[in-house]
């Protein structure tokens, strides 16, 4: 009896929904502020709910707290909708709240069906919210789905399940849904939900939550800026305190910049938060068992970058679940646990943020990659045979490549890793792929901390300034005019440079851009650049200072040229165009090269090593293997401190012992010059990362290849090497035994 009553209630509900949907319809002009706020708040609540739901499944022990959180989200929606007059939303939220209430009171166990049902409730609520945002009314076209959902929720609650279904065993839920809604409709609903989800996030792109504290600080700094400006205007350039004002302006600007950057920073966790649900749904669709683990969610990343890597990351996660992790049966056969593990890791590494997606799945089978590449005509079979593992992995990033044996609904639609790579490189990042068959695959996205300000090298060519992003810069080579004929060699029409016995294609920037050639007699510079796997030498007339540049977008007409990614105002007030390294390579016809060649080359020359040659004592050349030199720092002499007769340097929160065998510091002290600075090589064992020390040198001379000489009596058991055919002492051994291993040389 109760059952019949309930059904009629639902039917009546539908009617009232219809009228409800129609009443606000005339007012379709838009959504008022109050509703807008409500939508934003509710979306936040639903995001939280989504997170909690997926957590609930993995950590049932915390269920009480999680359920309370979910309950709050739904309850808030219900409360506010009633007030705003969205009847349909209220009804659905009410049904959800009812079920959650039972769950909270411990009357229901947490089951997979229950969570699926709650997720459907979440989708339903979200769909209505999006409808309200788009049209201003909650509409009625999907009213029937609501009643189905409400009935499902009620049934999950153990209430009056329809009699014909009540006799069936527990897993009736999915069947029931299939019966009530024809499958095409449910599919449509699913895709609609996915669509609304993306549109919802796009409206979120434009807004950003900022801590009021940060905003206050910004305001303070802007006030400071105004005050400084006033003082500057009043005092004029000639005034005595002008330098001080300029300094203040400098510090205020730096602070302001930092604060604004901080405001733009968003924890990566915001992005990760979307994945548990996605992975859960995907795992269902693909018949996998997947556990997802996070680390480094608090790592901050610029808002715009976070948006930029969202799609590539989503794609990578999809790939990992669909192609990476095997089906439970296969996993057990392979001796692994049935449940696959997907790890998302974010961390800082040398000025950029690294985001790793790794799975412990089947890995990428080289044969399949190669077979596919041959089939797609990306390589010829002969080439494929000779390819190494790493080379083959690079093929995955080529356009039109997908290893999925069959096109599934999840992935393998031709939008592949090439798009991932292109998107990440667009924001100045890079992508790496590592894979071991049977062990797993790791995809590493490396993105800069922020987009707006990038370190760059400013160069001149044809009388114009250009900025090259430091991320693409590998090294710089100076070619004196007299050597030009000798070092620039020709292969057909193209010119190449022999860089460490490898031929590097040379691209003349002035010729490429058809600039007026102002040939200078002194020689030219070549910047060795690498982007999208292309390595080439860009020839420019002169190098200016490295600068942190603020990237300004170009107008559409200039973007169309395709060679410049933006422009920047330099310190001297002139403009410089920022060169798009990858596009320049493409324009010049430089093709990606395989890294392996270089690796092999390195192996061959193992007895030969690169040395950093410097002068510590006058007239004497000393060298260090390049591998142990971390940085070359120029340090003001005043920063060198002394303790019990030993020179020390505070370097990045670490106390470094300084070796000063050439008595450089003493000589410098003799000069009585406060502004003077010394050059210090920061050295450390690359393997152990311990035993760091600083070596004070007079002058850094060169980086060169050399041969170690064998120790014998003739040279007095010293470590000597021939670098550029000149005798050079080798400074060696600092891990631990700093003092002892320091060799005296005549």
């Amino acid at each position, binding site marked *: 009896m109760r059952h019949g009553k309930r059904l009629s209630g639902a039917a009546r509900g539908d009617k009232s929904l219809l009228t409800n949907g129609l009443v606000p319809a005339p007012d379709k002009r838009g959504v008022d502020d109050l509703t807008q706020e409500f939508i934003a708040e509710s979306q936040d609540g639903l995001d939280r709910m989504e997170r909690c739901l997926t957590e609930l499944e993995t950590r049932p022990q915390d269920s009480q707290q999680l359920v309370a959180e979910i309950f709050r989200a739904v309850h808030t929606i219900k409360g506010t909708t009633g007030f705003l007059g969205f009847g349909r939303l209220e009804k659905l939220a009410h049904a959800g709240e009812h079920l959650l209430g039972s769950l909270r009171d411990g009357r229901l166990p947490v089951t997979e069906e229950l969570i699926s049902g709650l997720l459907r409730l979440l989708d339903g609520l979200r769909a209505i919210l999006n409808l309200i945002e788009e049209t201003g009314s909650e509409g009625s076209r999907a009213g029937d789905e609501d009643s189905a959902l409400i009935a499902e929720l009620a049934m999950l609650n153990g209430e009056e399940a329809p009699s014909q279904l009540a006799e069936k065993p527990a897993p009736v839920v999915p069947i029931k849904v299939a019966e009530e809604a024809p499958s095409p409709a449910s599919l449509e609903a699913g895709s609609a939900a996915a669509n609304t989800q993306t549109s919802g996030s796009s409206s979120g792109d434009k807004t950003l939550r900022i801590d009021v504290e940060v905003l206050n600080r910004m305001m303070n700094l802007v006030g400071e800026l105004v005050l400084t400006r006033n003082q500057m205007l009043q005092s004029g350039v000639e005034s005595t305190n002008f330098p001080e004002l300029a300094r203040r302006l400098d510090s205020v600007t730096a602070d302001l910049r930092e604060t604004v950057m901080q405001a733009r920073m968003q924890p990566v966790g915001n992005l990760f938060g979307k994945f548990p649900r996605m992975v859960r749904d995907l795992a269902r669709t693909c018949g996998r068992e997947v556990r997802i683990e996070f680390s480094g969610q608090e790592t901050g990343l610029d808002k715009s970058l976070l948006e930029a890597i969202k799609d590539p990351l989503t794609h990578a996660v999809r790939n990992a679940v669909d192609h990476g992790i095997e089906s439970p049966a296969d996993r057990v056969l392979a001796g692994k646990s049935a449940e696959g593990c997907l790890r998302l890791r974010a961390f800082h590494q040398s000025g950029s943020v690294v985001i790793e997606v790794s799975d412990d799945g089947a890995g990428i089978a080289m044969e399949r990659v190669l077979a596919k590449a041959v089939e797609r005509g990306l390589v010829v079979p002969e080439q494929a045979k000779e390819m190494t593992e790493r080379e083959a992995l690079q093929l995955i990033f080529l356009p039109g490549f997908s290893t999925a044996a069959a096109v599934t609904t999840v992935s393998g639609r031709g939008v592949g890793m090439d798009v991932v790579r292109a998107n990440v490189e667009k924001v100045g990042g890079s992508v790496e792929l590592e894979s071991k068959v049977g062990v797993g695959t790791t995809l590493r996205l490396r993105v800069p901390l922020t987009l707006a300000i990038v370190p760059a090298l400013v160069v001149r060519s044809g009388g114009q300034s250009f900025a090259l992003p430091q991320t693409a810069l590998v090294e710089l080579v100076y070619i004196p005019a007299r050597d030009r004929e000798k070092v620039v060699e020709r292969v057909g029409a193209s010119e190449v440079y022999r860089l460490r016995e490898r031929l590097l294609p040379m691209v003349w920037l002035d010729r490429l851009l058809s600039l007026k050639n102002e040939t200078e007699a002194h020689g030219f510079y070549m910047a060795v650049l690498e982007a999208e796997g292309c390595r080439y030498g860009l020839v420019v007339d002169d190098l200016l200072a490295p600068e942190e540049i603020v990237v300004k977008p170009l107008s559409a007409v200039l973007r169309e*040229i395709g060679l410049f990614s933006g422009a920047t105002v330099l310190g001297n007030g*002139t403009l410089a165009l920022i060169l798009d390294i990858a596009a320049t390579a493409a324009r010049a016809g430089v093709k990606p090269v395989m890294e392996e060649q270089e690796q092999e080359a390195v192996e061959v020359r193992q007895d030969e090593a690169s040395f950093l040659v410097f002068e510590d004592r006058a007239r004497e050349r000393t060298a260090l293997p390049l591998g142990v030199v971390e940085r070359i720092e120029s340090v003001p002499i005043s920063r060198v401190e002394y303790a019990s007769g030993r020179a020390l340097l505070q370097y990045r929160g670490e106390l470094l012992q300084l070796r000063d065998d050439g008595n450089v510091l003493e000589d410098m002290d003799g000069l009585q010059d406060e502004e003077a600075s010394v050059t210090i090589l920061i050295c450390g064992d690359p393997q152990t990362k311990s035993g760091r020390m600083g070596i004070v040198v007079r002058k850094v001379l060169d980086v060169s290849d050399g041969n170690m000489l064998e120790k014998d009596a003739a040279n007095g058991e010293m470590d000597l090497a021939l670098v550029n055919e000149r005798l050079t002492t080798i400074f060696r051994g600092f891990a631990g035994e700093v003092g002892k291993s320091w060799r005296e040389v005549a």
Partner: protein
Amino acid sequence: MKIVAQDSQELSEEAESASLCSMFAGEETFGIDTGKIREVLGKRELERVPMAPAFVAGVVPYRGDVLTTVSFRALLGLPENTETGCVLVLDDDSGGQERFGLMVDGVGGVVTVQQKMLEANPCTLDAKCKWLFDGAYKMENGLLIQLDPQKLRPSRLAETGMFRNGGGGENA
């Protein structure tokens, strides 16, 4: 009542007259509605943009933005001037945020013109100039050719495809 009447009279007068900023390029005098000019920057050195369409004189920094600047001489098909030109900043009032610069040989002053003195383009004008010009005012000391800033927008110019390889008749 009286005040209202005065207002309406002024309004009607305003509708009939317009204030144009006069500027020079080659031998001719041109004018742009002062309301559409954001700022006259004066003589500026531009940073050239290699490989850009011929009508782009270069880029110039302006209030934290990088402005694409159109060379009016190039549009007219005149040879490049050896002297530095004057740069005007024009606003795009069509809603888009596209501000741009216009480089001319020199900027005169503000001229008030009467609507009735405006005459449409002569029908013998070639297509490029027809696009650029918006009629001419018959002034006492010669003709003042009216320009429509909307049509000088770099993106519009690129769309027409007429000025890709330098403007003007013989030069193209």
